[in-house]
């Protein structure tokens, strides 16, 4: 029998969420969101090849309120995953692991992804 009263290792819900943890979760979440975006991207490219009436159909969807909301989300997901991805690539060189550095790069990644998203929609 398993002894149920044995102490468990602390679960996620115990901790006060540090910024680094939030970013780690967001990196995966935005990655999954972008994978779904890849499906829409494929449909969009496919619709170009199938002629103007198919293209209008995919355009109508992307131009709708839901489509626009999704595009906003995807653009933010893209920029976030990009900025945080650069952070990961920097870590891969073995640098930037001090507590200070890790938090500083976290806030930098967030600020840049927000700025990029707003700039992108301002231009487009």
């Amino acid at each position, binding site marked *: 029998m398993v002894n149920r009263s044995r102490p468990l290792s602390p679960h996620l819900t115990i901790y006060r969420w540090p910024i680094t943890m939030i970013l780690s979760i967001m990196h*995966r979440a935005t*990655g*999954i969101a*972008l*994978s779904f975006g*890849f*499906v829409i*991207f*494929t449909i969009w*490219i*496919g619709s*170009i*090849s*199938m*002629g*103007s009436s198919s*293209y*209008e159909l995919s*355009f109508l969807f992307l131009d709708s309120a839901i489509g626009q909301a999704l595009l906003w989300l995807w*653009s933010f997901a*893209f920029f976030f995953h*990009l900025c945080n*991805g*650069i952070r*990961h*690539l920097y870590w*891969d060189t073995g640098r930037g692991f001090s507590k200070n550095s890790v938090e500083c790069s976290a806030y930098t990644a967030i600020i840049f992804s927000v700025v990029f998203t707003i700039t*992108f929609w301002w*231009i*487009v």
Partner: protein
Amino acid sequence: MTLKSLINLTSKGVLLKKASGHWWAQRITAIMLLLFGSWFLVSLCTLQDLQYLAVLHWASQPLNSFMLFLFSLSLGYHSTLGLEIITEDYIHKPNKRKILISLIEKFHLILVLIIGISLLRILLGDAQ
């Protein structure tokens, strides 16, 4: 997997080779996406209203077509690797995990094939 078989695999370099291959592929496709993804968004900015003829004209330029294909290839590969890692982390039943990973791979392969065929059709002027 027993410890002995793990050590066996490790000493033969099979496991290490697979793991480090995955690691490198993820990084290389990440850097490719950094370039192609940025290129794609900048291109979208230049195609302002996304009207059909403008988009068709843009996508039928050989260089753009080539870039779109490289973008899709690296995106599909990177997405497969990422979703595989997440599957390995959260799906604990070996059978279920195996099936899910093979589905992810096949699904991405189909998406990239659809994009490849579509780009070819656009390039050859079959789209109207």
